[in-house]
């Protein structure tokens, strides 16, 4: 749910990166953080365990520039991927404007991908959102690994709705900004409709 401030002429939107544990959500945010100008970004906050697993969320605020005199700000969040953090994932989805699903292309992670996307549907529905209606894009990450399954296979299983999809290698940035731009565009287009959801 975006926040429009007529007084400061700002618009804030919330984007959540979802996906199974270790698929590369945090790496996406780290890459974006490292490649953006200091004046357009805030701090990257990571609430993680001692072993660098996301415990609650990562958070990165980004300014993208102005539209019709309004500053556009995007708040990027990741969820903790491990199954037992479900309560936290639900909390992070509150007020979401757009979702990126980061899939792990490795064949042995296919089941985890499917489980995670089903979990996303359920958790969104609990908040009254329909995954088929909200701004949603897909990233097939870890394309560099030899055990990656084909994009067609991933599409068939994870993207029957045919939302915008991007191959990714998050540590080197492949697909990272394309994914972000695609979801940001969808979110802004949604606002044009009046944000009635």
């Amino acid at each position, binding site marked *: 749910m*975006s926040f429009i401030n007529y007084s400061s002429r700002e618009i804030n939107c919330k984007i959540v990166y979802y996906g199974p544990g270790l698929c590369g959500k945090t790496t996406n945010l780290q890459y974006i953080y490292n490649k953006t100008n200091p004046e357009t970004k805030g701090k990257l906050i990571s609430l993680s365990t001692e072993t660098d697993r996301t415990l609650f969320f990562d958070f990165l605020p980004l300014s993208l520039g102005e539209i019709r005199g309004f500053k556009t700000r995007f708040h990027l969040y990741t969820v903790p991927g491990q199954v037992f953090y479900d309560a936290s994932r639900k909390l992070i989805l509150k007020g979401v404007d757009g979702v990126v699903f980061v899939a792990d292309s490795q064949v042995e992670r296919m089941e985890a991908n499917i489980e995670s996307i089903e979990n996303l549907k359920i958790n969104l529905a609990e908040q009254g959102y329909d995954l088929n209606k909200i701004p949603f894009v897909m990233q097939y990450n870890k394309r560099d690994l030899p055990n990656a399954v084909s994009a067609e296979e991933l599409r068939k299983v994870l993207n029957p709705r045919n939302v915008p999809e991007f191959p990714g290698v998050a540590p080197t940035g492949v697909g990272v900004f394309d994914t972000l731009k695609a979801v940001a565009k969808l979110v802004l287009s949604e606002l044009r409709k009046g944000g009635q959801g």
Partner: protein
Amino acid sequence: MAQQLVMYEEEFHRINAVCDRLTKDANAKVVFIVDKNGQLIAAAGQTQHIDTTSLASLTAGNVAAMGGLAKLIGENEFPNQFHEGAKDSLYMTLVGGRIVLVVIFDNRTSLGLVRLRIKKASDELTKIFEQLTKRSEAPGAGSPFAEISDADIDNLFSE
């Protein structure tokens, strides 16, 4: 889907005025207003050295987590939270179910005074936010983005 949060000039000034007054009356260091989804709405006091965007997001995360805990034990919510630090302390109050009022203070004031002043401020804020909701639900209160074009959106990403 939940209603979009829209802030207008008049209410924005009134909210800022409440924050300013609360800062003075409670002798607090900083006062913040954050919505439950992590957006900073207003801030007053010595905000220069605080990363307000991060503060807003972490406040929302904390309130969400405590709300989840409350439900687990059969409470609806924990409307007030107090965290005491070595120098600075922090008090959070839920206002009208949707907004969090955060006050940061040190030993120049007392928890009792802060609590007292928060009560008054939160009553005022409740009224302002009710008015805001009415206003944004009124017919004709369309999105300022109703008119944007694909080109406007593309331009954002042109660099």
